[in-house]
């Protein structure tokens, strides 16, 4: 299924966050050894209003090549974790670090560059219906300033890796599983070092879910730091996956 796995290894992942936009953030490719966490939560607290904190003293790390599955019931704080990593939310206390930088403290341009360098696969694929799958997958590369031709090349390569074909079809013509894989291609088109996956199997049948999880495991093997949230703890994972659970605001192994 992971047709372009070798491509992932031959092309260094680039979480370079604004390196080409004059940001002070440093490239993430080389300085981080396999064991160096790319994502680090250090005693993070996050509350919304007067309600009890969703996260309280939450700490965990995800290193390069790791596949971490974070589970918990609805409202446990899984999406909050992802939003803290992408800088849409800021922690009340503690520190969220992505490649040595704290997203919530980055200026807008650097934060956008960081988000472009993190692959995000949402629960729903959010493919735009008015353009082909290929054009959907090209979007992150175009947003990164690549020419249409270069973006198309990257998109075709990403689509090949996830096994969706050439991407000439419209999203409505794809099955749910293929749409999710196309969204995964969009998430990896900029060759990120970090892949955030939000309950990817929620809308898929068992076979499609297994395919997708297999793909994610292969991406982790290829060197990406994969953090996946899931509703249930019974989601079948590959042997290299690490399970974490959110319980009463804390993250436990």
């Amino acid at each position, binding site marked *: 299924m992971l047709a372009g796995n070798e491509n992932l290894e031959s092309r260094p992942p680039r979480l370079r966050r604004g390196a080409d936009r004059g940001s002070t953030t440093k490239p993430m490719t080389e300085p981080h050894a396999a064991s160096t966490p790319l994502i680090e939560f250090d005693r993070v607290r996050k509350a919304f209003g007067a309600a009890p904190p969703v996260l309280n003293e939450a700490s965990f790390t995800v290193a390069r090549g790791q596949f971490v599955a974070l589970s918990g019931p609805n409202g446990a704080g899984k999406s909050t974790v992802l939003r803290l990593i992408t800088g849409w939310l800021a922690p009340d206390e503690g520190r969220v670090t992505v490649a040595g930088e704290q997203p919530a403290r980055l200026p807008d341009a650097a934060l956008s560059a960081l988000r472009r360098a*993190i692959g995000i696969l949402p629960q729903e694929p*959010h493919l*735009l219906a*008015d353009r082909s799958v290929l054009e959907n997958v090209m979007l992150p590369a*175009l*947003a990164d300033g690549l020419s*249409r031709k270069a973006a198309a090349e990257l998109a075709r390569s990403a689509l090949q890796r996830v096994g969706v074909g050439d991407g000439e079809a419209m999203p409505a013509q794809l099955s749910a599983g293929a749409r999710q894989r196309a969204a995964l291609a969009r998430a990896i088109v900029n060759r990120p070092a970090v892949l955030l996956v939000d309950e990817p199997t929620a809308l898929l049948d068992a076979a499609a879910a297994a395919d997708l999880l297999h793909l994610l495991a292969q991406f982790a093997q290829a060197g990406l730091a994969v953090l996946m949230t899931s509703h249930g703890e019974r989601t079948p994972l590959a042997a290299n996956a690490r399970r974490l659970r959110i319980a009463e605001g804390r993250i436990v192994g």
Partner: protein
Amino acid sequence: MKALAVRAHALRETARLLRRRPGSFLLAVLLGAAAFTVPLTGASIARSSATLVQQLPLGPEINLFLAASTSTTEIRQLQSQLAGRPGVAQVEWIARDAALKALAERTGSSGLAGQGANPLPDVLVVTLSPQAEPTEIEAALAELRRLPRVDSAAADARWHRQLRGLLRAAAMAGTLVGGLAAALLVLVVLASVQLQLTTSAEYVRVLRLVGADTRFVVRPFAYTGALTLGLGMVVAAGLTWAGLTVAAPPAAELARTYGAELDLRPLPPHWQAALVAGAALLGGLVAALGTRWALRRS
């Protein structure tokens, strides 16, 4: 290269936006055109009638009636002296004989010119600057009245006051129309942007998901705003041209009955090009600000 690539992408997305709601875009262009047409027509008429307005005696006049015994040399000296005074635009001498002849012609009374003694005085008509305020006119009148050889002086400030009032009212009306047009244009662009943002909510959501920066998201909407007002101005220029073409012959006919020449014409092409560019810039700016504002709220 990168700058070109993101702009090329923005242009493609602009085309996509327009294809998505062509009717709304056309309506916005027509509303923009309607808002532009009134001030553009006003500006064209004002420019066409500039020569006519320049012929009007805009400056207030003070008539100095000189003593009967004043010699020609003295009158010329006085005329020259007055012409050098600050605030004086022009000094015209109406000789008593010429005045009598003109009066006779106007009244058709040939007997007046044949009388032995001309009862009319020599008159110096002092035209002040058009910018003179009523207090300045009064002060000048009092001062000129005291000059030697001046028997009496009278100011014809009424016409000046009326004209100034008329011009002020015209300027106020112009400002009001311009302000209303500008407000309407801003509303048209903002409403158009809001509509496009609503229909493009998923597109914006995906762009944010993939980390597109604000400028990347905003650019197609800004281009759409620029196109809306730019095209609106083009349509307004066309409407103005058509309107002036129709109105020019009767307007010229009317002006001729007052002994004046009036040729209603649209603004020169390079002015119109500048106005189209300015309108596009305004549209782009308003759309960009509106989109940024909407994104910040969402």
